[in-house]
């Protein structure tokens, strides 16, 4: 007879086992596919408006309206022709002005026309279309009959995008609950139970933040006077202001996680140790921990002491790469919705991380230590290896990112060179097939420049990247071994040697991080980026004007290009000087510490 299998229910502490967890890649793939396929499909079906050619009658002093709520990219085409009765006015306006129109208040329109008997007209517009109304008004004495055909098509809309993202959040929440069921977690364990309120709060926040841009947009549109200069564009700007505010809120909100009886300092120190043991990169700055969850997401953990305990708080953050992506998307304006989606995703991910990874680790405070000094020493070894691993990994990522940036810059310069040489060749060659020759000159010169520069760059940068990668891998392996309580193999260096050697390597790592300094001073980096981009644009325009024999305009554009280029160089020098100074200070401080350490060790070995 087969016996029933007894399943042991797991408490929160069981969640601690294992190395860093990965996010559900399957869910991510599903969300991306749903966004790529679902957004256009839903936009074109649910939000599109079609009216076959038909005749409508509008009573005197009355109107008929057709609503296009696209909230994204689309196109509207319609044609009207007057059949009988009086003239009909065609007015296009946004939602708020439509409400004003209906209420008999002053309103503003985006386009106006009229259709008389026997007259006809067509209208077509495409691009960013928000909430638009086509209103046919009959203010004549008799009824009017108008033949109308409308084809309004939304291609990519914010509404299905938000719906899919919300559905994905809900699916993530549900999958988490299912995973808990499958993991046979003890649902009576207070820490297991505490996870869901944290996630629910995050889901509610995500919902509110998703609706906030629309609320801000409507609010701005409602308070904007009808004669404001921006007209209906104000609504679009309002939406983007809403997105910006929502992104800021995402990174400003601080959530309560749990209350603990330990004092703030040991609580954070023990938590940092536990997270490091699990392989997370943790940096401590004052009374704040920053834990890196992925290459883009991070979480900040702080505490607040009260009379009956210490609140552990968490806040969404990002790595320098994550912030750079958001800032670049933000400045492209049309990429702002993507920046918002990324911020919302980070917020939800942070709450998931806080509830499933941080909360269980708080349950084991204080760290159980074996009697004597061995546990202390092991703890310090883990901390030392973890810090070395963090710095070497950051140096490796910085060096790699720097290399990739340089390759992109070389590619851009190659393309510019290609265009300039192609245009020069085209203007200098007199033969009939000068187009083909100019094209060949441009492409070959650009490709040759790119290939040679890339080869030289790779020859210089790759050995350093490989060395940094090897260091990060070695320290990662040593940390894994130490955490597992294993001894290093006989030929391998000891953990102490690994820490001591990594200490010697640190100046190199700091230099590697400094070279990718843009990520640590995003203001200067962005300023230089946009100034140089402006210089490039102005220069390109200047050349175009010059080629088209518009010398005055060309001279103005080239002057602007020169001014922007000078400003770029000026700010680059300030930026570089700051980074050099910062590196110099760090290295001199490091040297000082190294000298003191050496003398202390020598005294110890001398038996003093």
């Amino acid at each position, binding site marked *: 007879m087969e016996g029933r299998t007894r399943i042991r229910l797991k408490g929160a502490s069981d969640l601690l086992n294992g190395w860093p967890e990965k996010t559900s890649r399957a869910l991510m793939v599903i969300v991306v596919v749903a966004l790529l396929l679902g957004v256009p499909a839903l936009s074109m079906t649910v939000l599109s408006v079609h009216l076959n050619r038909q005749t409508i009658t509008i009573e005197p002093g009355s109107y008929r309206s057709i609503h296009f709520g696209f909230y994204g990219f689309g196109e509207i085409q319609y044609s009207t022709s007057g059949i009988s009765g009086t003239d009909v006015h065609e007015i296009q306006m946004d939602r708020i002005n439509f409400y004003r129109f209906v209420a008999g208040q002053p309103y503003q329109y985006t386009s106006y026309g009229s259709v008389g008997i026997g007259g006809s007209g067509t209208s077509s517009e495409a691009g960013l279309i928000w909430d638009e109304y086509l209103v046919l008004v009959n203010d004549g004495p008799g009824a009017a009959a108008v033949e109308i055909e409308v084809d309004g098509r939304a291609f990519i809309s914010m509404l299905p995008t938000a719906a899919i993202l919300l559905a994905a959040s809900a699916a993530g929440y549900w999958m988490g609950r299912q995973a808990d069921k499958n993991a046979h977690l003890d649902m009576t364990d207070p820490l297991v139970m505490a996870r869901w309120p944290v996630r629910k709060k995050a889901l509610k926040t995500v919902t509110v933040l998703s609706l906030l841009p629309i609320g801000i947009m409507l609010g701005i549109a409602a308070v904007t006077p009808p004669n404001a200069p921006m007209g209906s564009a104000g609504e679009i700007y309002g939406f983007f202001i809403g997105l910006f505010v929502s992104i800021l809120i995402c990174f400003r909100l601080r959530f309560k996680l749990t209350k603990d009886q330990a004092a703030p300092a040991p609580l954070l120190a023990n938590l940092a140790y536990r997270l490091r043991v699990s392989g997370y990169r943790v940096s*401590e700055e004052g009374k704040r921990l920053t834990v890196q969850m992925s290459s883009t997401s991070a979480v900040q953990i702080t505490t607040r002491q009260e009379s009956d305990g210490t609140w552990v708080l968490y806040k969404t953050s990002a790595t320098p790469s994550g912030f750079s992506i958001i800032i670049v998307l933000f400045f492209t304006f049309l990429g702002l919705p993507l920046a918002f989606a990324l911020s919302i995703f980070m917020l939800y991910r942070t709450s998931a991380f806080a509830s499933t990874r941080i909360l269980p680790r708080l349950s084991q405070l204080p760290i159980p230590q074996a009697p004597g*000094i061995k546990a202390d*020493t092991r703890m310090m070894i883990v901390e*030392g290896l973890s810090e070395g691993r963090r710095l070497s990994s950051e140096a490796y990522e910085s060096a790699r990112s720097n290399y990739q940036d340089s390759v992109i810059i070389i590619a851009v310069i190659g393309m510019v060179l290609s265009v300039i040489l192609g245009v020069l060749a085209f203007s200098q060659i007199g033969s009939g097939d000068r187009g083909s020759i100019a094209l060949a000159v441009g492409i070959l010169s650009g490709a040759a420049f790119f290939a040679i520069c890339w080869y030289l760059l790779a020859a210089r940068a790759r050995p350093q990247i490989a060395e940094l990668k090897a260091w990060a891998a070695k320290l990662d392996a040593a940390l894994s071994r130490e955490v597992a309580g294993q*001894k290093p193999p*006989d030929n391998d260096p000891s953990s*102490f040697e690994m820490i*001591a050697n990594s*200490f010697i390597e640190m100046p190199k790592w700091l230099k590697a991080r400094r070279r990718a300094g843009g990520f640590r001073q995003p203001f200067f980096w962005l300023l230089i980026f946009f100034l140089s981009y402006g210089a490039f644009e102005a220069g390109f325009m200047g050349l175009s004007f010059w080629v088209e024999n518009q010398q005055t305009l060309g001279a103005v554009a080239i002057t602007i290009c020169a001014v922007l280029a000078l400003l770029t160089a000026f700010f680059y020098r300030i930026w570089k000087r700051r980074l050099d100074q910062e590196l110099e200070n760090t290295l001199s401080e490091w040297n000082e510490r190294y000298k003191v350490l050496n003398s202390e060790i020598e005294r110890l070995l001398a*038996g003093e």
Partner: protein
Amino acid sequence: MVTPQPMDRPDLYIVARILERLWREEQPMLKTRLQTASNINYDVFRRYTSWMIDKGLIAVETSNDGHERLRLTPKGDEAYKKLVQWINEVIHKKMPS
């Protein structure tokens, strides 16, 4: 048996390697096993263990089977901890205390 030559200036890494190997063991280690685990040649090993015994960092025990084994003394344990602590503090941007 030839007495190993005295050392003027011991190499920190070798001292730390021997201390760490002994620190990881619950029981005293056979000399040959410790030498292999520390990846040091025999002469160097003898010089260092002799120096460390003189300093009271490690101690020799003769077991029932007649083999000599080395173990970490409380002073050695404390010394290893101190080395790790110092380097750890320096890495975490503090001066060694």
